[in-house]
């Protein structure tokens, strides 16, 4: 299926590059469109997204596009986002990603929005790449039925989540006065 000459793959790659900071004007140029045409096209694809099967081939490609945004019509585009390899060079450890996750989640609990770009110097696309990379390793072990590896990974994950969870809870403790703190049994 195509909308104004763009395929779902085009739309997925455009989304991945947009999340990495590429402007709509630049994206429109990649497709040889003027901005109004691209925005109308994009809106139609957003509508189509709700019709796709979760875990189906299109949605899988949508994930892959974030891992490797510089492909298809974006392969030779200057300013297109790098693949996950570059992001992993910057943050190679699982601990790095769990730290970001916990930072984001615990700050959110106290009503603070973390700017990933500002805090860690990576875009939302790069942050998603890390998530998909480590999620993929976990999924691979699960699908392969390697129980020993799964147990090891789970244990490590729990340990890292606790380490960084405690760290950020401590950091935000002054902002986290619960509404039920004064009620006691």
């Amino acid at each position: 299926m195509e909308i104004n000459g763009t395929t779902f793959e085009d739309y997925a790659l455009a989304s991945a590059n947009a999340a990495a900071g590429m402007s709509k004007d630049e994206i429109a140029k990649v497709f040889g469109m003027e901005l109004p045409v691209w925005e109308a096209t994009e809106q139609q694809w957003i509508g189509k997204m709700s019709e796709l099967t979760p875990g189906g081939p299109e949605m899988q490609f949508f994930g892959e596009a974030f891992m490797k945004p510089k492909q298809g019509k974006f392969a030779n585009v200057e300013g297109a986002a790098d693949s996950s390899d570059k992001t992993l060079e910057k943050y190679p450890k699982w601990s790095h990603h769990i730290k970001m996750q916990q930072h984001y989640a615990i700050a959110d609990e106290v009503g603070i929005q973390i700017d990933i770009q500002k805090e860690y110097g990576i875009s939302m696309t790069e942050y998603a790449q890390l998530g998909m990379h480590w999620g993929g390793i976990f999924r691979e072990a699960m699908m392969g039925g390697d129980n020993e590896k799964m147990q090891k990974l789970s244990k490590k994950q729990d340990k890292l989540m606790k380490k960084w969870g405690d760290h950020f809870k401590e950091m935000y403790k002054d902002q986290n006065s619960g509404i039920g703190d004064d009620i006691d049994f």
Partner: protein
Amino acid sequence: MFGFGNKEKKDKTKNPEYIALVEKWDAFLEKIETRFKESLAPAEEAVLDQLEDGNYDMISNMTAWSGIKSQLLQLSDKIETTFDDKVGPKMLEYIERYDLIDQDQKGVVLGESFRPRIERFEIILEGKVAQRFFDHAIQFLNEDFHCTQCNGKLEVKKDVFRSHYVGCDYCNTTNTFTPNNKITEIRWVVDNIAKHKALKEWDEKELARKSCKSIRSLRDGDDKTELVNAYNNWETKEKAFWTKYFTERATYVSEYKDTIAHDVEVKMEWAFYDDKKRSDLYN
């Protein structure tokens, strides 16, 4: 000899100290319930105030609500930890572990009620926030826009919140209208306005869903009439909600008018038919 000990322990349920403990637990739960209810109005006020104070930045507004929501949900954790750490161990001095379930359930029922109540409150709150944002952002569309060629006044569409072509009535030049970020964001907030406007239908479909889900599992040969009726009712109410929702949304974004029926069908697939296919109706 075993029965002796149990009997002695069971008798303690009438012990004034145990009864006092149950009353204290009930009072604790009542305080939590009161705190939950009393926190909702200030939460709404805080989130709405934040919208104006934060110059209508929807992301920081959503984060502010997320923080408050998290605190409301933490009341549920508080019930659980209080029971596990304090109430349960004390009660076990008087009753058997299996008798503890009734007391534990009181807390579980209250704790589990918070999430759906917050969900409903959120529809109202986000609807109000969205309406306020809309009223603010739409003013930018009411400004005068002029043709790049002849400077004539352009008639910009009031229900398209993205860049689009606008023809000049005076010199026929095609202009590209590029809205500011606030106008662009209107496209997203209208979803919440529409949902809020469909609250009555949302309540009805939730009631129908719960009623359907409360029917016990059927065994081979059981009469399915009650379940059939419940699913039919749920289907009607679910469809009414999505129809109202998409119709309301299309009043703000006219481009959606032609796809209402299709959009309802797509939503019905995952919100209802998927569940129905897996139900006891087909066992």
